[in-house]
């Protein structure tokens, strides 16, 4: 594993199991995420993209979820082997996640300011892990003067001062996510926010912790188009300013196209295509990706109707034989029905699971 790799998911297989049935949510997922890389995970509902996100931060409800196989190496440590306590220490500043429904992601009894302060407090406490209290820097320039070395002095902030000390940073964080009038929004309760504002508060909350990896689960689905553009801009800013890597889970290829370096297309719990973003939109290799691309509305195309992929996502309890996509694939031939295509490197840096793309 090179230094540039932040996260390495190996052979991850996850099922939802109850006494009566077993649903294969993820099968053999392999994915590496580099530092400061933005990867979009795309697929229809039920393709396993959210399960993948939740597995990485280890927030799957177990039971019913069971990890049958695989490793999730984060900075070389296997997250699946960590205790709940050690995991809590990785979450937030190491890996953070924001969820689809912003309004229910904020605790209704705390103000926006209190909730962002809480996130700052976690970060500050971890800065000096052996000491229990909140701290502040004595000399903010010390880090530069010491040549980037971690020679920073800290003093304890008394509880009574904490609110004041953090509130500047809270205002700054709200301003960074384009919230007008942050001093007032600070004292609002979540139900007094619009969906778009709540989503930006969520992002601010994640941003102040400066995670190395942010998993964003459909962050643009519950907000309107103008907010959507802002959210994506913030994702890019987070990568640029803080060097965060981002896993952007979305069902919308157009969203993926705007920010992602690489795109992972998932279907029925499997990876079907992993490619750099520029080339996937130019020339999709997998028929499913092609179908997804053709179903994006484009204003400059005057050819009448949008193309839709026929049929539905298969029932994960009863998967089709061979290639899982073959019943909906217009290129399917006999081999697709009987044999399961493996992910192969079709072009340099592009992997796809389709017999059409197998090297001759």
């Amino acid at each position, binding site marked *: 594993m090179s230094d540039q790799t932040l996260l390495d998911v190996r052979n991850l297989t996850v099922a939802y199991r109850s006494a009566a049935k077993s649903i294969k949510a993820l099968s053999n997922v392999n994915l590496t995420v580099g530092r400061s890389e933005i990867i979009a995970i795309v697929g229809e509902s039920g393709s396993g993209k959210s399960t993948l996100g939740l597995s990485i*931060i280890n*927030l799957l409800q177990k039971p019913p979820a069971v990890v049958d196989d695989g490793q999730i190496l984060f900075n070389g440590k296997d997250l699946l082997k960590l205790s*709940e*306590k050690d995991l*809590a*220490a*990785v*979450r*937030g*500043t*190491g890996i*953070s*996640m*924001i*969820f689809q*429904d912003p309004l*229910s*992601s*904020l*605790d*209704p*009894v*705390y*103000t926006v*300011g*209190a909730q962002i*302060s*809480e*996130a700052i*407090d*976690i970060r500050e406490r*971890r800065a000096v892990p052996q000491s229990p209290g*909140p701290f502040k820097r004595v000399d903010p320039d010390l880090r530069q003067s010491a040549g980037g070395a971690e020679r920073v002095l800290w003093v304890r902030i008394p*509880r009574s001062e*904490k*609110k004041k000390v*953090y509130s500047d940073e809270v205002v700054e964080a709200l301003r960074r996510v384009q919230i007008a009038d942050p001093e007032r929004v600070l004292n609002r*309760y979540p*139900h*007094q926010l619009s969906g778009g504002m709540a989503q930006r508060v*969520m992002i601010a*909350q*994640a941003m102040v*912790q400066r995670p190395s990896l942010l998993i964003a689960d459909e962050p643009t689905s519950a907000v309107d188009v103008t907010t959507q553009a802002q959210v994506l801009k913030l994702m890019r800013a987070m990568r640029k300013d803080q060097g965060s890597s981002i896993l952007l889970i979305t069902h919308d290829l157009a969203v993926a196209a705007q920010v992602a370096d690489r795109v992972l297309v998932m279907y029925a719990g499997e990876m079907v295509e992993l490619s750099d973003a520029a080339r996937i939109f130019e020339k999709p290799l997998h028929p499913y990706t092609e179908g997804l691309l053709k179903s994006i509305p484009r204003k400059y195309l005057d050819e009448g109707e949008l193309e839709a992929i026929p049929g539905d996502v298969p029932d994960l309890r009863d998967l089709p034989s061979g290639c899982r996509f073959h019943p909906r694939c217009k290129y399917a031939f006999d081999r697709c029905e009987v044999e399961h295509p493996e992910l192969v490197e079709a072009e340099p840096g592009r992997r796809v699971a389709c017999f059409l793309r197998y090297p001759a």
Partner: protein
Amino acid sequence: MNRRRLLPFDTKEARITLRILRSSKITTAGLVIVVGFVATAIITWLTNDALLPYNPYAFSSHLLYPPSLAHLFGTDNLGRDVFSRIIAGAPYDAEVPFAVLAIAISLGLVSGTIAGYIGGRVEEVIMRVTDVFLAFPGLVLALAIADSLGPGINSSILALSPVWWPTYTRLSRGETLSIKSQQYMEASRASGQGARYIILHHVVPNIIPVLLVYATIDFGNVILTFSVLSFLGVGAQVPAPEWGLSTVQQEQYLTSAPWAPILPAIAIVVVAVGFALVGDGLRDALDPKIRSLYG
């Protein structure tokens, strides 16, 4: 940092709470009863019955006098002034329910949130223990404990608490489970908080209002059960002016001098209803969505 809003403590929040409570006439009526009752209890206790028109314990020759200007609520079979005795009984009927509910809520909140949040074996153990307590009929259990501790106010409190806490444990557990499925719990874990912090800062503040509302409605039940203990001889002791005891003591005059047994009983009902009315209003007043309309 965290502005804790376990209870609306600071003056602005308290003003909002009051405004919501007073916006409904029926809640206002309940509020008047509850405030009047608590104030009466505290003042009577602090002044040691000195402000009462008659000594509530002193016998007189005025046996079973009907209500008049001299004796507002009449007199009982020993010639004691019923009005003075009802007022003097307020501290008894305030102390026991407040103490029992405080103990029940504390125990229930701790055990219920832990059971609900952690789940698994811990939950099994805690919930089976509550089942053991619930398996006994409440009154029988309280009687057995009170009897072994000897009669008196303190032993009534100690006897009623074990009967009362399991309900609050189950309530807390249920509420914790429903909060646990909310996305903000997941978000809080995703931001790196540990279990103890999440229980204390995200679960507890969200379920406190539910417990408080339930407790106000439950207040009357505690008074009634306490009265039954007194009736059976293990609660308050003669000549204490406790309302349940007074009712029981005067029961035989129900037809000849109804004021003696009925008025203390009415006092119990009025206070119980008053608390229930406030509880109803409190449910609205503690809902952040309704609060913001008044903030």
